């Protein structure tokens, strides 16, 4: 079973990898749920997409879920995403709520 959440803390890291289709996305969503309980600890949430090959709406929904539940004070990053991956985020308008960068530096 693939895991996505790498580290919880002020900078919480989530390693998105492989193909996240609707058969996989529920597992990602489940992993994100405990973050909500600890949202006071989190200042920055980093979705690392450098090994992400594919994502559709089911996976994007998990990102939206995290952004909504963590609230306005937590900055959410999307880093290292390929052009094809970014394209899907842009089409849904979700890119506007994320800080998009090639890499994350604290």
């Amino acid at each position, binding site marked *: 079973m693939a895991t996505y959440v790498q580290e919880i803390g002020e900078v919480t890291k989530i390693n998105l990898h492989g193909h996240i289709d609707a058969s996989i996305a529920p597992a990602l969503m489940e992993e994100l749920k405990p973050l909500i309980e600890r949202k006071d600890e989190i200042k920055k949430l980093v979705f690392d997409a450098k090994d992400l090959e594919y994502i559709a709406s089911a996976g994007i929904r998990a990102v939206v879920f995290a952004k909504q539940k963590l609230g306005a004070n937590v900055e959410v990053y999307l880093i290292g995403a390929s052009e094809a991956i970014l394209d899907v985020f842009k089409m849904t308008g979700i890119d506007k*709520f994320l800080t998009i960068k090639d890499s994350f530096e604290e």
Partner: protein
Amino acid sequence: MLKNLESIAERDSLPKLLETLTNEITQYVSDDKLINRLKVCSEEILVNIIDYSNSKKLWISCEFLEAQKSLRFEFIDEGTPYNPLEEKPEVDIDAEIESRGIGGLGIFLYTTIMDELEYRFENGRNHLIAIKKLSDVEMIKPRLKIGVLIESDFYEPEIEFYSHCFNDAGLEVHFLTRLWGNPELTFTGHEDRKPFKCSESFETIDQRQLKEFAAIIIPAGYTADRLRYTEDVEKLPPACEFLKRCFKDKKLIKGIICHGAWLMSPISELVRNRKMVVHNNLLGDAKCMGIDYVNEDVVVDGDLVSARTGGEHVKFAQKIIELIQNR
């Protein structure tokens, strides 16, 4: 073409279905972003069927409509009648994050990406037809080009024949060489010093352009020997670098005739254990290269066609044309 590929309607079927569909899409589409978009559309439509139709099975078709330059997808299920297009949800992509609903994103994506969508309920089955028009840039062009490597001391009757025989068969011949920065070079033939002008280089053919070629031919004469020159002994000759790329593409036929096999010696691993015939003078070279020598005038081993001598050029070219026409 995919015709009514059957699958169990459950989310766990998605990885396999998406892989099959993507393989199909990449036969026709060259643009990576569009390939991904069409994969996303397929998934969104499939997830809708799986989650809401109560159908146990589903069927997928995908075909390229040549006249319309379009890809046509059809998704069929035997669930309850349901037209997803009627309930097109309002998705406001400019809304604030707090008010973004998480439903409807899938339908929003495929209705945005696809050019035409049609729903019908027929004989107890839901049919959703989705069409995407492809621009010329997005489309993979049919493989119609034949590349013939050329240098001085070529065998005149062979090159003269190649100049028209492929075009006569509805293909398009391109003579390729190393131009050394020149717009054009004039080579001379081996027998009568006959001049031949060449203005195309194999060095500038990128991966996308290579997919427009049906075959690459290393002809008889001294072309192979001249093209295996390298000015840097640490590096492979550029012609061999080009051939390495050609051998990776299994849909591209490689034709090697007569002394053409010389050009394979720096990259002999590509012909090791391959069935081939070479000129009688090159029997020792074939042995050193590990070629599985076959004593016939023309030999076919999958994507590799070889002929014994320049004199066999007619049979050799006809065999290549036959393989292209029957692919």
